[in-house]
Every structure is written in structure tokens, then in C-alpha cells.
């Protein structure tokens, strides 16, 4: 019989995850960056308020929930209204949906966090990044950084849920979380660097379908070697 363990996702990783997600969205859709960050802040406030409300701190919880919902709605509205044209509207919508899903995944109203929700959120964010590439609203460097930030965000969300499940929220875990996040961010930086190197290597004259066939051949070669 030991004291109650609050098996909620670890705080630091959850916060870093949401920050990275918002960063990813705002890199793709620069016009909506302020709105997205405000919406994330509102979301965090609202969920924390709801959690406080459920655990007995009624007054503080209600205030947090109301203010949070207002701020989140305002942020989302700002992000959507700042969009010019249909492509940016799609990106803003997908990005907000992804951030909200991720937020509910790592800051659950009840339970120990949801890997499914955070995966859904990250999938929506990936679609945002892909949309950014397709509609050409962002340049290659921004897209690369956004993509790396997205992977970092997803990894931090997973880590936050795992640490929360294993150690609970009361335990001191920030060193472990920071080390993990640092490692992933470093690799993200390396990935961006690698992407830039690959871009500079690319010969403009090479037709894209030749690259496609080469890629398919590479995949088959890898599969053959794997067995």
C-alpha cells in the first residue's frame, strides 16, 4: 500500500512537446504563428483548469477553464482569420486540430495520457507540413525545421506519457526528460543539416522520376538485404 501515484504525463516533456508542435505549425504557416502559440497557451490553461476543477479546487479550476477557453478560442480565431487564401486556411485548420489533439493527449482531462490522441495530433501536424510543401507556402529550410520540430514534439509526447506511467507526476524526473529531449533535439538539428546538404547536392538537371525509380530500387535493395 503506497501513496496515490498521479500517473499523468510528465510536465516538462508535455510542455516541450506542445511548444515544438506550435513551433512546427508557425514555421509552416508564418502568418498564424502568434495565433497558434496563443491557442496552445489557452489550451494548457483550460485543461489545467479542468483538472483542478475535477480534483476539488473548484474556484481556481473554473476561473482557469473559462479564461483558458477564451484565450484558446481567441488564439484559434486569430490563426484562422490571419490566413490569406484557401491553402493557408487548410494549414491553419490542420495545425490547430493537431495541436489540440496533442494537447489533449499529453495533458489529459482524466487518465494517464493518450498515445492515440498524440499520434493523431502529430499525424495532423505532419499533414500540415506536407500541405506547406505542396502549396509552397514555406521554403525548404522552414519545412525541414518544421518537420524536425514535429518529430521532436512527438518524441517528447511519447516520453512524457511513458515517464508519467512509470514514475508518476510527483517524482522528480526533469533531468531524465531534459536529457532525452536534448538528445532528440540534437538529432533533429543533425537531420536539418543533412537535409540541407542533400538539397545542395541535388542536381537541377536530374529529372524527378529518375530519382523516384532510384528510390524504389533502393527500397527493394534494402528489403532484399534485410532478409
Amino acid at each position, binding site marked *: 500500500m503506497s501513496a496515490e501515484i498521479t500517473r499523468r504525463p510528465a510536465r516538462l516533456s508535455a510542455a516541450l512537446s506542445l511548444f515544438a508542435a506550435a513551433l512546427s505549425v508557425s514555421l509552416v504557416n508564418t502568418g498564424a504563428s502568434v495565433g497558434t502559440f496563443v491557442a496552445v497557451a489557452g489550451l494548457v490553461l483550460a485543461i489545467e483548469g479542468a483538472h483542478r476543477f475535477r480534483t476539488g479546487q473548484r474556484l481556481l479550476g473554473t476561473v482557469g477553464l473559462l479564461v483558458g477557453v477564451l484565450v484558446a478560442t481567441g488564439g484559434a480565431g486569430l490563426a484562422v482569420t490571419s490566413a490569406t487564401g484557401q491553402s493557408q486556411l487548410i494549414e491553419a485548420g490542420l495545425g490547430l486540430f493537431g495541436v489540440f489533439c496533442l494537447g489533449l493527449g499529453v495533458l489529459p482531462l482524466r487518465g494517464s495520457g493518450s498515445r492515440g490522441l498524440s499520434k493523431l495530433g502529430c499525424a495532423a501536424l505532419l499533414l500540415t507540413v506536407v500541405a506547406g510543401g505542396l502549396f509552397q507556402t514555406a521554403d525548404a529550410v522552414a519545412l*525541414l525545421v518544421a518537420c524536425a520540430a514535429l518529430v521532436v514534439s512527438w518524441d517528447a509526447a511519447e516520453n512524457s506519457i511513458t515517464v508519467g506511467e512509470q514514475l508518476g507526476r510527483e517524482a522528480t524526473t526533469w533531468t531524465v526528460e531534459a536529457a*532525452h529531449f536534448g538528445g532528440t533535439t540534437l538529432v533533429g538539428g543533425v537531420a536539418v543539416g543533412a537535409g540541407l546538404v542533400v538539397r545542395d547536392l541535388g542536381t537541377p538537371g536530374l529529372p524527378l522520376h529518375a530519382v523516384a525509380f532510384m528510390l524504389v530500387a533502393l527500397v527493394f535493395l534494402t528489403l532484399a538485404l534485410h532478409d
Partner: protein
Amino acid sequence: MTTPQQTNRWRGVIAVALVVAAAGLLAKRQELLLLSTVGVVFAAYHRAVPMPTPNLSLNRRVDTASPASGDEVEIEVAVTNEGDETLYDCQIVDGVPPALTVTDDPARRGMVLRPGETRTFSYAVEAERGRHAFDDATAIVRDPSGDREVELDVRAADETELDCTIEITKPPRRSQTLDTVGSVAANGTGSGIEFQQTRSYRRGDPVSQIDWKRYAASGELTTVDFREEQAASILVLVDARAIAYRGPPGETHAVDAGASAAAQLTTALLNGRNHVGLAALSAEDCFRAPGAGREHRLRLRKLLSRHSAFAASPTDTDDPVDEQVESYLGRLGEQTQILFVSPLCDDTAVEVAHRFDGHGHAVTVVSPDATANETPGERLAAAERRNRLRALRQVGIPVIDWPLGDPLALAIDAQRGVRT
């Protein structure tokens, strides 16, 4: 478990990278094709990063080893990385004794450990009556990418124990005795130290027992008799059947209380130079014949803290009560007393006491009271238990009713007060 397990955290990252690359190819967008490098780098990362082989040692320090019940005890845990690799993600969960409640700070900590580095954390538990051994701590070590993890038990350098018992000065026994010196007052007279009577000298009395002063004064030869003290052979039998895992919600259950009572009783009885054995009525046989001596004492203590019969939760298997009683009866010496520690949750417990009694073993029952008084069902159980106590007392088996809130010594004294 010491082989690394895949967490499958990064599974699918290559597939996603390929899908994005395919989308880029179909839409003829170089930027999208580039994005797949991010996926490839992360896939390579989790493959390339080495899984450290953890080699941890743990030291546990308790600020008071024998606290009073209800005291807060602070426990400091120091974890050292004995290996030569840095552990970037090491999570420690200390093996708090199952009966204790952690009150301050969690008994868990995540830490980054460089080779040779020691990190400490502390937490507090509320002491409960009984003797509590700490379990091994559990460590979960992951590689930096979180792709593989290994879970291992870390044993403390020296075994820590919280001893929260009040010493019992006079454990309950009945006056059936062995021919060795102990603390049970025998009815016979002989060469003890407690004066019993003087009588006229009979041929063959030891010279040392002649009252020489009296002879000098009156010329009469008288012999002083002393009360002989003899040792008892006692088997402490704990009722650890699945049904005995009862207790008021949120408190110690009867088997835990029984094991703690057994620990206190064996210690007290051994201190009184009796021969003490230990057995359990449980799914698994647990029997140690009565004996004496330091080694025997340690063996009994180990049995109580490690044997599966006294585990914190019951096993699913049926309890072979009849066979067990039969086998214990066969292994017991003729004059062995039985101290039966049982919450008396069912009639089988009463039958067991009767059977030992019927085979000529003097039985005393120590019954931790695991009943509550809230719902009608609980009140019924309490009434049934009272009936069982009465039934036992009617056939001359002394029963010590032990309310779990009180120290055992108090309950024994109360019972002694009833009898005299």
C-alpha cells in the same frame, strides 16, 4: 529481466518518411522529398545509439530503524552507476514494504547517471506495526532514444528492515514443558532459582540445597526446594490461507498482521529460551520444526520476510488445509504447543485448532481482529467471529483477541488479566 526490450517507439518512422517522399515525388515537389531525410536520420539515430549495460548498486538508509507505530520514517536511497557507460535515462522505483504508506515525496526518481556517479533521493513512510523488510528496487534503464529499455531489480547493499514492534515480555504459553531450562514455571520442584518450599531432609537430596543456617541453629536437616523452570517447545502456526487476507479497507490485512505477530512471538519466545518453530497454513507448505539458537532465529526471520506464504497478496491456488495439518501433525514432537495465529475468518480455522488440540498439543489462539463494523455484512462477520472465539474458549482453548489498532503485547496482557 536483463535483456533489453524493444519499446517500438520509433517503429514506422521509415514508413512515414517513405510516404512523405512518395507524396513529394507524385506532386513533383523537391521540398517534400527532402523531408524524408529527417525520417531517415531519426531512424538511423535509434538504430545507432548503443544500449548501455546497466550496472547499478543501491544503498538504503533509514533514519530510525525501530520507530514507533505511526511515526514518520525518512528513507534515503543512494544509487551508484558502477558501470562505465553513462545512463541517460534511469528510473528508480524503490521497493517500499507493501504494508507501509509513503507519506512524503514519492519513492521514485528519474536520474541521469555518469559512470561512478551517485545520486540520492529520499522519501518518508509512515511506520506500521510489524517488521517490514524492503524489497529490491526496480530500475528501468533506456537508451537515449528510448528505443530499447531494460528492467532490472537492484538489491540494496545491506538488507534494510523497519522494526516497529513492541517487545513482548511474556508471550502466551501453556504449562506443558520440556526437560530443558527455560522460562516456563514447571509444577515440579527441583533446582531452579525461585524459592518454593522447605521440607525435611530426605536421603539423597543435594548437599547444596540443605539449609545449613537452620541446621546450625536447630540441628535439624531441612532441604530448600526451588521452582524448576523448563523450556517449552512451541510451534507458531500462521493462518495464511487466501481467506485470511481480510482486513478493514485501506488497512493491514490479517495475514500481514499475523506475520508481524509471528515475528514478535517467535522473538519473545526464543528470548525466553524456548524451542520455537514456525509454520503456515497456506497454498505452499511452510514448516520449520522447533529449535533454538541464533541461527535458528535468523532462519525463522528469513522465512517470515521471504517465504511466499506470507506474501502481500494471496495466490489463486486452493489451500490444502487437511493435508497440511496432517503433515504438520506428523512432523511435530509430542509435547509441542501450538500458537495458532488466525483471524478466524471461517470455521475451518476453528477445526484446525480442535484437531491440534485433539492430538494432545496444547493450543493457544492469537486472533488478529480483521473485522469491521460498518455494513450489515461486516457486522455479521464480526458476530460469527465472536461465536468462534466463544466456541474455542468453551473447549478450554485460550484465545487472545487482538484488535489491530493495539500493540500485541497489550492484547496478551489483557488476556492474562482475564484469566487470573
